């Protein structure tokens, strides 16, 4: 029983991380209809920036979010303005190539600056945990989960309550109609890419609390982010949160009760089955 609860708790905690790293991908897809292959680059960059700030200035990873968010926004908006924007009239799939190129360049820059060795950081609360009844919950993971929920609330409020949120949603629904209603579509795209990248980079800040990083870090989580986003319904932030948690739980249950080696098999099979079944319903 304790085992089951531990596994469930772990699944939820991991799942919220999945959700957080996927928000940005979902937002970018929703607004630009672009599958952001450079997502992994922003995640990795987030971890490295956080690691560097921590080891150089002793900055806490949670504080470094204040830096990774604006930095991510600036970088993302720049990539959109300078590159993605130029392919707006080309088949959507061509942006895959472009963003893959961006990813390669970022990766190379990281190799040159940081080398290929694993890097990880340590904070005073890194290995602390909290006893809740029979459960032991990791404090960094609890913090990250709280941030993930907070991120969801902020994002949802932003989309619902603010002007830019309205513009984002309008463009997501129908680009041409939004443009005709006076929404500055070009700017909205840059903003969406910026927010998406800011989310990815800040996800990196949070993930630095428990993952070690190499320039290849993003590759590990890119595919998983895709799963979460698609399972959650691509543009639906709430769906992404639920999908992330669901996937986390499914993985941990499989790992514990079936076989640890099959945790990712399950997440991918759940993904495919859910897609196929949902589509069959709506046919």
């Amino acid at each position, binding site marked *: 029983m304790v085992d089951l609860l531990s596994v469930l708790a772990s699944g939820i905690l991991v799942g919220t991380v999945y959700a957080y790293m996927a928000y940005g991908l979902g937002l970018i897809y929703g607004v630009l209809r672009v599958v952001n292959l450079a997502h992994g680059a922003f995640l990795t960059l987030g971890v490295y920036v956080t690691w560097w700030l921590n080891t150089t200035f002793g900055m806490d990873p949670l504080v470094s979010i204040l830096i990774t968010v604006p930095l991510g926004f600036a970088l993302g908006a720049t990539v959109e303005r300078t590159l993605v924007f130029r392919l707006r009239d080309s088949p959507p799939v061509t942006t895959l190539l472009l963003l893959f190129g961006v990813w390669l360049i970022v990766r*190379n820059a990281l*190799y040159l600056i940081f080398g290929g060795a694993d890097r990880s950081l340590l904070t005073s609360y890194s290995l602390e945990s909290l006893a809740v009844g029979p459960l032991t919950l990791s404090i960094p993971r609890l913090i990250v989960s709280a941030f993930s929920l907070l991120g969801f609330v902020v994002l949802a409020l932003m989309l619902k309550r603010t002007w830019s949120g309205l513009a984002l949603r309008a463009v997501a629904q129908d680009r041409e109609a939004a443009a005709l209603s006076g929404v500055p579509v070009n700017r909205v795209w840059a903003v969406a890419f910026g927010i998406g990248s800011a989310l990815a980079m800040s996800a990196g800040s949070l993930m630095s609390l428990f993952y070690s990083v190499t320039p*290849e870090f993003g590759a590990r989580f890119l595919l998983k982010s895709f799963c979460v986003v698609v399972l959650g319904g691509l543009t639906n932030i709430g769906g992404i949160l639920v999908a992330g948690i669901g996937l986390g739980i499914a993985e941990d249950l499989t790992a514990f009760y079936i076989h*640890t*080696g099959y945790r990712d098999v399950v997440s991918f099979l759940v993904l495919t089955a859910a897609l196929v079944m949902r589509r069959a319903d709506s046919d």
Partner: protein
Amino acid sequence: MSPDSRTRWFPVLGLVLGVGLLAACSGGDDDTIRIGAALPLSGKHANVGGFFRDGYQLAVEEANAAGGVEIDGVRRPIELRVYDDKSDASISPSLLERLIAVDGAVALLSGYSTPLVQAQVIVPMRRGIPFMNAGGASKSIFREGNQWVFGALSPVESLASTTLEWLMWEQGQDRLPRPLRVAMVWQNTDHGREYRTGVHDVIEGRTDRFELVLDESFEHLSSDHTSLIVKVRSVEADVFLSDAHEPDFLLQHRAYVEQGLGHIAVSYGARGPERSVREGLGEAVSHLVSAQWWTRALPYERSRHFVERYEAQFGGPVTEYYPAVAYEAARALIVAIGNAGSTEAEAIRNALTNLELDDSLLPGGRLYFPEESRLQIENRCVIVQNQPEGGVRIVFPPEAAEGPAYLGS
């Protein structure tokens, strides 16, 4: 941009590529002896590839500082050419072909990680080129009838068997219970599979000594290990053995500490002394036990020399075994070329087969390639334990031990 202004770019691009290609194809002057390697400097295994490059480079520079290698009475410098195979098993062999055909390499040094080295060894075996393997510890790399592939890294099994021998030795000192309840998890890669084989080979038929209460694999680069650790907790073992590469090790041990587990002894295969490990886990890695193909704690002259040179050049402290083994492998190859007094493949191979280094930095202090193990060395590992506040101490074998191991409750 009009279509025409776009096309204008093409001759320019073509020119740049063409010139670059010509430059890339040039062989270089013929005075030097060229040896080559394709290493994973980017991609999945890049966290290790750089260490190998450093180790190779150090050995080559040392040889050149000593005047190079004497061939037919002329001393000739050695040039090391390294390419990045991006951790890709189909690119890696093609780069080796390139090293032989275009760059004129007379011998090759291996890449790192068993799958990549497995893909590489086909090339030297097909072409008949000496190949010195420092990065793939799997026995399966050394095929039946192998004449060209020399292994400077003992099999992974020896990591496991040395660890268990240590445990048995501690049992003999009455410091560990019998039978010992062992929980073992292993990374589902070639490395982990062979580690598991090594463990099974030792405990087979030793029910009085060991009871294996968990035997489970996990995927390389897992996104979380908490549920596995909960499983480990639930089997209530005395010792916890895991075989993991660095990212998984960091995550796994983090979950281990977070979940409040404690075993009499905890070992993650070869993991433990690395610098990045203490960077991320701090004091939580104290008392971890690991099996090492090399450790800076070894008291040999050559080993001290290597540590000094390496740290002077690349900064230190050098805590990983990778550059040391790479250095030793390259050094063995260079010595063999010198012994052969020739750059002919056959001659170098024969020299390697007959090579015997008495000043090796590897455990045991000797390096030769026994034919009965298909040219893979069989040097033992040493067991080291992380010390609080950093550093490691050799705890096994007893003749090399610097002191007794700390065993938890």
